[in-house]
């Protein structure tokens, strides 16, 4: 009886110890993953900043005016006002 109890507690301790070691390994593995994901987030944030910069450049009024004048052959708005009246 005593011998069986001893074997039981021995295996229980062994399993608990294994579980503890497994946990530590998981922590390290997750640590690697978190680090990778953090780098991925930083890369995406940098890409986002670059795209916002491009949006800023392309919506710059100087750039739009140049396109409007040279490519679309438009001219600045005059002070004439056109009001469309409703049909009688």
């Amino acid at each position, binding site marked *: 009886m005593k011998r069986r109890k001893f074997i039981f507690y021995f295996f229980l301790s062994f399993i608990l110890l294994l579980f503890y070691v497994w946990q530590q390994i998981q922590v*390290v593995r997750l*640590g*690697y993953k*978190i*680090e990778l994901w*953090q780098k991925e987030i930083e890369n995406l944030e*940098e890409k986002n*900043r*670059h795209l*916002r*910069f*491009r*949006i*800023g*450049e392309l*919506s*710059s*009024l*100087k750039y739009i*005016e140049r396109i409007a004048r040279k490519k679309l052959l438009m001219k600045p*708005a005059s*002070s004439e*006002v056109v*009001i469309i*009246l*409703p049909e009688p």
Partner: protein
Amino acid sequence: MFKPKRLFLCFLFLLCVFLIFVFRLFQVQLFKHKFFVRQAKKQYLCFERKEPLRGMILDRNGSIFVLSKEVDSCAAWPRIIKNKNYVLKKLSPLLGLDKDELKSKFFSSRLFVWLKRKISPFEAEKIKKFNLAGVGLVKESQRFFPEGNLLWHILGKVNIDNYGIAGIELAYDDLLRGSQVTELKGRDAQGRKIDLEISLQDKKEKKAKNLVLTIDKTIQHIAERELTKVYQETKAKKAILLVQDVTTGEILAWVCRPVYSEEEWKKNPLLLSNPGLNEVFEPGSTFKVFPAVFALEEKLTTPEERYNCENGLFEFQGMKIRDPEKRGLLTFREVLSYSSNIGMTKLGLRLNKERFNQYIRNFGFGSPTGIGLPEESPGIFGFQRSPFSGSPVFLPMLCFGQGIGVTAIQLINAYSAIANKGLLMEPQIVKEVRDGKGNLLWSSSPVVIRRVLSEKTARILQEILEDAVEWGTGTEAKIKGYRIAGKTGTAQKFDLVSRKYSQTKHIASFCGFFPLPNPRWTILVIFDEPEKLSYWGGIVAAPVFARVAEGILNCYKILPETEETKYAKTKKSS
């Protein structure tokens, strides 16, 4: 057969070995425990420092003026470089650096040296391809301007270490910068990092904030386009244009010319200063409005009182005062509209010096406006500080805007008080502060400094200034279908060498507000020493005002009051 004696000797030997092991274990785990834990931590743990990217600066509608992006900087670890001469030969032409300069860095005793900071993507790619041991790329952040030189004088600059050195970048450096983040990371045998979820930043750690300015990008663009055109045509030394919201004090546009290249301002950082804020000028006739306000408030004159303008030439205390045109009797309304110096001189003789002094100070002259930008000048004002203050002609001269030094922001703010029914507002340039995710942290609200004139006097002045545009010296500022009020100014510049007013150097200006009867915006235009076209404010500055004002009215879709629009409105409502 085993002999007992030999067995005992073997046992003794094994016991000794065992005891040595036990002693060594004791030594490692108990006596030198702290030492080995330290060594392990050194190998396993590392600090990772991250400089937060500087916050963005945006216009009032969220368009980006400035943002930070990561760029590569080239660095070297001299002790690791084996063949220094070979590396020198490769790097020098690529980075455009002097060989001697690179040599001194390579052969230094330092562990780490910068070779060239914030290099172009092309240079970075080449460095990566060369794959030289001991030379590598380090990420840093740099400011980028999607709108180019728009708002150049207001935004300011940062130095190589991303500290603000001028403009908004300097004034709000604390908010824009944020604090360094230090994290403790694990490191395996291959050098790969492991996140430990441990950060070591200060409890007072602050993240970089984004600033939303009061500037309207569209109005700024219109203002820059119109001012630059005339600045180039007149070959002026400098030009300034400000647009202000009358009821809130918010600055909607701020343009100064010239702007400078990076090489120019790095050689001379004084070029970064903002002329609209820290340069003082004699305003000339645009200042006539303020003694007029004083005289009307104190009931020293009325708009219809007549003044003899001596046919354009008046001698007073040995000084010859001239008018732009020869005129005889003029009402006070006409004196202002036609900008008669003689009429204003005669008004000046009635003014009480001390009370007038206080009145002008109430308008904000002689002290900073409190706009929150660095190095704001208070102007030169004060009867003790002016070179003419002891002279009997001082007060009359002041009445036509000579003998006082004002800044552009002071002048436009004072005119806005007249447009705002007598309430002087605090000028504002920052509208909101937001965090990195766009959440609002702080927002500005209009601040009334004080009442500087009564509503009645403000209305009278508005009408007189409207006459100045309708038939006075400011007719070039007219816009068909809109009611505009404003005043021209043409001031001779004081020559510090000859101690006399120059006959050839002038400051041409126009300041006005619109649309009446409820003005919403004030615009100030200044040209310093225009050489071509003309030096008169009514000819050079007033048309710029008109074009910018027209642009603003179009942006806000404010229809002109013409016969056609009145007809259309009645038709629509019926």
